[in-house]
């Protein structure tokens, strides 16, 4: 009985102390289960949501934040002791709302992942904080690895490039509170990096605790989409619009590359979709430079005047061309 009163007082203190700044987190709602759900139901709900939101398997926006909330809820609800403590707090809060007349769930503010983490720490303290792959609070523990996205322009992949990066590093201060440290580095991006590649910078991650080593920093390379070029391995592809008469008669077209312009000869009777290879004008590859492929795209004028229309009509009479001849053979 004394324990229950203590819990209720703790809940009241938690609510009073944090007031509107920190909402009570409904872990049952986070997992989508009823408060009387059994362990098996809770585990099933967690696994279903974890498969959906785990940042290593999900491509959904905000998946990592959502997963952290789900993992935190599961951390509490699958532990008999933590769940009992949480239920006491939850019950005390409901009673308090009953007396104050506030509607259930009237928190009135956004729930962010930081809110969840703060709430968890308020309940269980930093010593009881959960262990996730994304947090690090054990004694003598290597610092957390940090991964940041590094946008790189195609032009920057042609030779070794130095780029400045700034990022925030989480760490615990002497009082055990989570803090963030802003860090600036100048990193060398090697020529020929590919989209999705990760570069490891040893010891540049979060500081280790208890004299343990720092974590590592991973740069996740993201090639910035180019308005003209598409990337195919270490080859580049550019779409070359042609007038119908250019495709029919042949022409010379000036096309851009990443390092300048070149003249491309279009042979007579070229087809839309045809790929022409320009050797060595692609990206830097491990076994030499890639190629640039020019893909021809025949385009029509948006408007045709009367005189031009007559010329097209003459062409239609003279050419005797059936573009759908293959259909009649099917």
């Amino acid at each position, binding site marked *: 009985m004394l324990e229950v009163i203590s819990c209720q007082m703790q809940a009241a203190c938690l609510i009073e102390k944090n007031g509107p700044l920190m909402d009570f987190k409904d872990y049952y709602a986070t997992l989508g289960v009823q408060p009387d759900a059994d362990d098996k139901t809770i585990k099933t709900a967690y696994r279903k949501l974890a498969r959906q939101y*785990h940042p*290593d398997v999900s491509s959904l926006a905000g998946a990592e934040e959502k997963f952290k909330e789900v993992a935190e809820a599961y951390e509490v609800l699958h532990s008999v002791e933590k769940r009992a403590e949480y239920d006491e707090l939850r019950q005390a809060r409901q009673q308090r709302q009953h007396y104050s007349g506030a509607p259930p769930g009237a928190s009135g503010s956004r729930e962010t992942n930081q809110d969840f983490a703060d709430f968890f720490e308020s309940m269980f303290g930093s010593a009881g904080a959960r262990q996730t*792959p994304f947090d690090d609070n054990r004694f003598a523990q290597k610092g957390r*690895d940090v991964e940041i996205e590094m946008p790189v322009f195609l032009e920057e992949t042609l030779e070794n490039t130095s780029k400045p990066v700034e990022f925030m590093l989480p760490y615990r201060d002497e009082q055990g509170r989570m803090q963030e440290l802003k860090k*600036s580095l100048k990193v060398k991006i090697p020529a020929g990096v590919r989209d999705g590649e990760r570069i490891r*910078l040893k010891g540049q991650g979060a500081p280790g605790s208890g004299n343990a080593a720092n974590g590592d920093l991973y740069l996740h390379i993201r090639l910035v989409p180019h308005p003209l070029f598409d990337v195919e391995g270490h080859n580049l592809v550019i779409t070359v619009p042609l007038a119908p008469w250019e495709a029919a008669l042949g022409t010379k077209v000036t096309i851009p590359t990443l390092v300048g312009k070149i003249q491309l000869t279009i042979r007579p009777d070229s087809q839309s979709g045809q790929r022409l290879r320009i050797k060595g004008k692609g990206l830097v590859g491990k076994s030499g430079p890639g190629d640039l492929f020019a893909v021809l*795209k025949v385009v029509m004028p948006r408007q045709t005047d009367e005189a031009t229309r007559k010329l097209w009509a003459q062409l239609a009479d003279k050419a005797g061309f059936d573009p759908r001849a293959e259909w009649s053979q099917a």
Partner: protein
Amino acid sequence: MMSTVTHVHINFAELRQCVSISEDQLLQLVTEGILNPRTGQGPEEWEFDSTSVSLVHKAERICHDLAVDWSDMPLVLGLLEEVQQLRAENTYLRQRLGRFLQDEQS
């Protein structure tokens, strides 16, 4: 403070130190082709791309968070890699298609 840093390669022993799984579990990832040494004929000579550490950490996270048996991890990582490749290919093909398709203006 600004400092210049570069990427590194690591040997098998260093990889072992960076991760918390056992040597047997690590060897399983190599045997099944999930981790591919850049050079070397055996554990004492192997040298890995530094990104191998991130791959093993990913395996550890999945094993812990999704309660997947370690014996199934090569299959899981292989399928995830395939999904990633297919997503990248899908993005590329959509980008290419977008350069050819034109929506009719009404």
